[in-house]
């Protein structure tokens, strides 16, 4: 087995509107796969099929040797599929700490009774978990914001917190939906650094949707290009960049020139 995730011939439509029309790709265990394409190409729909929000009408999702096409989202998450969202799905009223802590909920074992007593096992467990969360806070360099409400934080920082929450799950596959959208150059560089470190040090496979072509070309090992719910090109960045179909999909605009 040389893939951790396989999407096979995914078809998805809503009330007659075809969102996906036969999407297939594999993700190997240590790679970063980029998915690019114009708006409305179906990129996020693919992610929603992988993590279980949508169930494709046709096609299969195989993850770590198991077919998971019909599993509910929370069970896929328990298997180690973590993701972030295009427009940040944090808990705005909770602190940074609590937000990241929610990523640990599935790793905690205290039962209802232990939780109602709290002193003893549940509390000890909570303190251990807190240490793990602090490591993540360390990694993302957001110690200052620890006790702040997420709603009060700037956008770039929120994106970091969301990554932190996904990491708290100790994922075995990380899906990032536009992790750098709306970020400043500095913040983008930080985010790229985290992503590379996760790849080099933790060997975490990732799927990345991103509109910043420079980032995609630099970070990804392989790229899938989508348009109108179909894969129109696939391969290493260099070959995708030169692919005439890809250039056409971006309407005459050469992919290489948008680098910044």
């Amino acid at each position: 087995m040389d893939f951790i995730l396989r999407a096979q011939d995914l078809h998805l439509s809503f009330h007659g509107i075809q969102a996906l029309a036969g999407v297939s790709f594999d993700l190997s265990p240590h790679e970063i796969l980029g998915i690019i394409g114009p708006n409305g190409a179906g990129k996020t729909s693919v992610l929603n099929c992988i993590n279980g929000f949508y169930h494709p009408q046709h096609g299969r999702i195989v993850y770590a040797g198991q077919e998971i096409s019909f599993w509910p989202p929370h069970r896929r998450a328990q298997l180690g599929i973590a993701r972030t969202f295009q427009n940040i799905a944090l808990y705005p009223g909770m602190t940074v700490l609590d937000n990241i802590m929610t990523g640990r909920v599935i790793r905690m074992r205290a039962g209802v009774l232990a939780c109602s007593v709290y002193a003893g096992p549940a509390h000890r467990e909570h303190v251990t978990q807190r240490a793990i969360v602090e490591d993540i806070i360390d990694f993302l360099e957001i110690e200052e914001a620890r006790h702040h409400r997420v709603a009060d934080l700037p956008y770039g920082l929120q994106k970091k917190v969301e990554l932190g929450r996904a990491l708290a799950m100790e994922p075995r596959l990380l899906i990032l939906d536009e992790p750098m959208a709306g970020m400043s150059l500095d913040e983008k560089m930080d985010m790229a650094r985290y992503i590379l470190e996760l790849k080099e040090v933790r060997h975490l496979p990732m799927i990345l949707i991103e509109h910043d072509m420079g980032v995609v070309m630099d970070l990804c090992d392989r790229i899938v290009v989508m348009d109108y719910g179909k894969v129109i090109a696939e391969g290493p960045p260099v070959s995708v960049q030169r692919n005439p179909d890809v250039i056409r999909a971006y309407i005459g605009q050469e992919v290489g020139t948008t680098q910044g």
Partner: protein
Amino acid sequence: MSIRPAGDFKISYAQDMAVLDSTFNRVGFGALLAALVLAPFWLREFIFLLTTIGIFAVGACGLGLLTGFTGQISLGHAAFMAIGAYASAIITGSLGLPFLVALPLAGFVSFIFGAVVALPSVRIKGLYLAIATLAFQFLTEYAIIHMAGGVGAISVRAPSIGSWQLRTETQFYYMLLVVWVLSGVIASNLIKSRIGLAFMAVRDRDYAAQVLGIDLLYYKALAFGIAAFYAGIAGSLWAHYSRLITPEHFSIVTSIDYVAMVVMGGLTSVWGPHLGAALVILLSQGLKIITPEVIAVLPVFAKIATPLREIVFGSILIALLIWEPGGIAVLLKKLKRKLDLWPFAY
């Protein structure tokens, strides 16, 4: 950012996560407990007020967990209280089991009803859930009246612990106080724990909770179950306190009172339900006491004496929600912050 008195630093994660996390809170909590323990001495014949507040605070605590922390609206909380009350009456009456067994058992019976009612709550959300619980409230009332016959009234035995009969108001109050404090502490523990985190995740953004591996069905059912458990305990306490129960005690009006308690008290505060219960009970009991006095002075009001509670209650509810949507808990927090900084404005 929370503002804490200078000099109260935390040097371990355990300290940072303690329930009572500052000297002010610890001293305040101790003083409150002392006042409650000594209440029969300073409240004297008005101790019944505190007993009533306590019983409803227990129930409101459950609704606070469900609505405030899990975000599920219930307009049928009194129905679960009714289930607990009637269960307790039957357990101590026909089955002849002691009160100390009946109390938790009534809670568990309600728990099961609550968890079952929750099953559809995964499909229906928000408004629709509110409407479904409203329907459940009316159907429960109807079912009880039909099963109990007549107006649905049954009498309940006085509670006893072992061979010790709780006959006086004060004895009952102390028993209640133990249950009350326990339920408050347990609710606060649950919120601090893994379960509380999961609840809040479900409340704030359910799809994000799923992505974190949190099973919506399980946690919603658990929240409904726990809320119903609390209501069941409150129902059992109420049954053994009032000694005669009718479905009228647990009507839609009581359900609305419960929602008013948690909303007015403060939805996202562990203290909210207690503060809200105190406010609502004092308000309605206070109006009962004051109205005859007012009528004696101003006979014009005689005509609206009965609906006066509704009018005043409704007006205060609206005024409070417009003035401070966060409820009394937030008002108190703001007050404390002002006092901390007094006499300077910064």
